[in-house]
């Protein structure tokens, strides 16, 4: 009872990276709160699934294995969580801020009238004083996220309602194995007890999933463009620079919204989080929404003709110049000095 739960997302029978990242975070939260870490998997043909999950320090794994649970559809998975949580009364539930997590989380939180905070960039434990009623709550989950288009960072708490639910994007938390031989309990549930047959009304009739076209998440060098790149053609220059440097190309939300670059390369709170050793920000002003996705980069270079661009404040090198001028020079001098 009152443990930390992580909903593990599956592609086929493989647990998603984001879920393993959340198990790592969940383990730390559980240690802090002195409770257990429990995980949920729901899918089809899940024999041996515990091998993927246990090393992250899971004390109890709830397995829901039945036909119709993969591919994911909203209602059966929601019923599993809603009914299991009514029994187990978790204090915290974490899930990926993926298409699945953002489809499932709100439905579960609505049924349990618990709060849910989307796209958190940080999770901490702390106390909260409600001055109006003169009450102090200990050991609440601080759900920290940029808000309002990234102009503010808000800390959200759910003082009275449980579970405290949060979604987190892939790459925000670090995945770390706790113990290869961690011994946790596996509980196989009777799915029919949790999911009424009437839940299986939405059918997936066709499905195409491709491996990502890029490896931004794992890239050592990222060359990212913002609205200041001016056009799709401007981005072609970035791809040229990236090719030379063996880097991946990313983009700010403004550049994606303007149609300069594909959505799957967006870096920031509502996109990917990257941890490269070098990040070259080209024509990016640096709203917090973007910074949230790249601030852990080792070295940050900002190329911007606005010397007051917010990103310059976190950059190690600021080049005051236009991208049209500087990027070709970078390509030129890289070629010259590597020959």
């Amino acid at each position: 009872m009152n443990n930390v739960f992580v909903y593990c997302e599956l592609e086929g029978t493989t647990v998603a990276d984001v879920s393993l990242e959340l198990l790592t975070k969940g383990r730390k939260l559980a240690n802090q709160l002195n409770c257990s870490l429990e995980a949920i998997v729901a899918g089809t043909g899940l024999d041996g699934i515990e091998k993927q999950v246990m090393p992250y320090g899971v004390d109890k794994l709830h397995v829901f294995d039945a036909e119709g649970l993969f591919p994911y559809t909203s209602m059966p998975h929601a019923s599993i969580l809603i009914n299991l949580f009514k029994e187990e009364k978790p204090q915290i539930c974490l899930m990926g801020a993926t298409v699945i997590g953002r489809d499932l989380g709100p439905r579960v939180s609505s049924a349990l009238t618990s709060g849910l905070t989307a796209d958190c960039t940080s999770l901490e434990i702390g106390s909260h004083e409600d001055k109006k009623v003169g009450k102090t709550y200990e050991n609440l989950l601080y759900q920290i996220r940029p808000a309002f288009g990234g102009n503010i960072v808000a800390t959200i708490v759910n003082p009275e309602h449980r579970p405290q639910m949060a979604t987190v994007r892939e790459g925000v938390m670090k995945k770390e194995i706790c113990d290869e031989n961690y011994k946790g309990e596996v509980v196989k549930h009777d799915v029919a007890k949790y999911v009424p047959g009437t839940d299986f009304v939405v059918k997936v009739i066709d499905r195409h999933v491709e491996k990502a076209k890029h490896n931004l998440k794992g890239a050592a060098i990222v060359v990212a463009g913002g609205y200041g790149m001016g056009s799709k053609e401007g981005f072609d220059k970035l791809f040229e620079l990236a090719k030379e440097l063996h880097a991946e190309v990313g983009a700010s939300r403004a550049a994606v919204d303007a149609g300069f670059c594909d959505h799957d390369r967006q870096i920031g709170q509502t996109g990917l989080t990257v941890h490269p050793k070098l990040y070259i920000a080209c024509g990016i002003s640096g709203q917090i929404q973007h910074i949230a996705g790249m601030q852990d980069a080792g070295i940050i270079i900002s190329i911007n003709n606005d010397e007051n661009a917010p990103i310059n404040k976190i950059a190690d090198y600021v080049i005051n110049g236009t991208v049209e001028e500087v990027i070709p020079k970078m390509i030129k001098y890289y070629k010259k000095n590597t020959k």
Partner: protein
Amino acid sequence: MSLKIIVLAKQVPDTRNVGKDAMKEDGTVNRAALPAIFNPEDLNALEQALRLKDAFPGTTVTVLTMGPGRAAEIIREGLYRGADGGYLLTDRAFAGADTLATSYALATAVKKIKDYDIIIGGRQAIDGDTAQVGPQVAEKLGLPQITYAEEILNVDEKSRHITVKRHIDGGVETVEGPMPIVITVNGSAAPCRPRNAKFVMKYKRALGAQEKAAAPACHPDQAPLAFPELYEKHPYLNIQEWSVADVNGDLNQCGLSGSPTKVKSIENIVFQAKESKTLTGSDQDVEGLIVELLANHTIG
């Protein structure tokens, strides 16, 4: 076959075009400096609804929004583009709602509208980016949901099933579900058609009760309610407003008191300034930087 469609739409501050005066000195948001717009993805949803209206004559499209009196603008905007009517949920008791209290309010209004086949809205609003209201409305109404929709492919008359193409992580999916159903639409879906001049002429004087009482923001040059007789003669010019009582809402589930999440603190963004090296775009500076990065094996 004709369909009854409810479009969920929100008036939002335009957070994409935030100027320097958007934040006050105390770190709170200066809403007055941000223009109020039709949430972009709700326009994508409206377009999907209007396409069904084109395909199935007799279909009605109703816009449902929640907000202050000036949010009647959202209903007007919907009417200009081809919607048939709308409701504005407006009450001080709705203020301060998080996604759950918002969904509760919208669900009570949907129940009052009663007769519907499809409830459709944008995937998320740009002021919160949570994507929670659609699924929560579905849960409150006990309906199935299809989120992240790109396109409604088909509505089958006989089975009353709807087929939708949707985005998933790393791919696309085609799903089919029975109506009534809740659908949320991505910004990458077809953009909304422009205003239709005929509808603009017809509805330009459509007003909500609060707008009628005040000098209307959309016609600031006019005295309050220039032509009162118009509204008796043409009932469609009256944008209907609903209070908590009108939708039989439970006050405990509305607004701030119905919101399990509380904002503990808000920080304006001030970055810790790093020691940084400032360079120019000159050949010498750029080459110097490249040489330095090569020397310390950051690149190469």
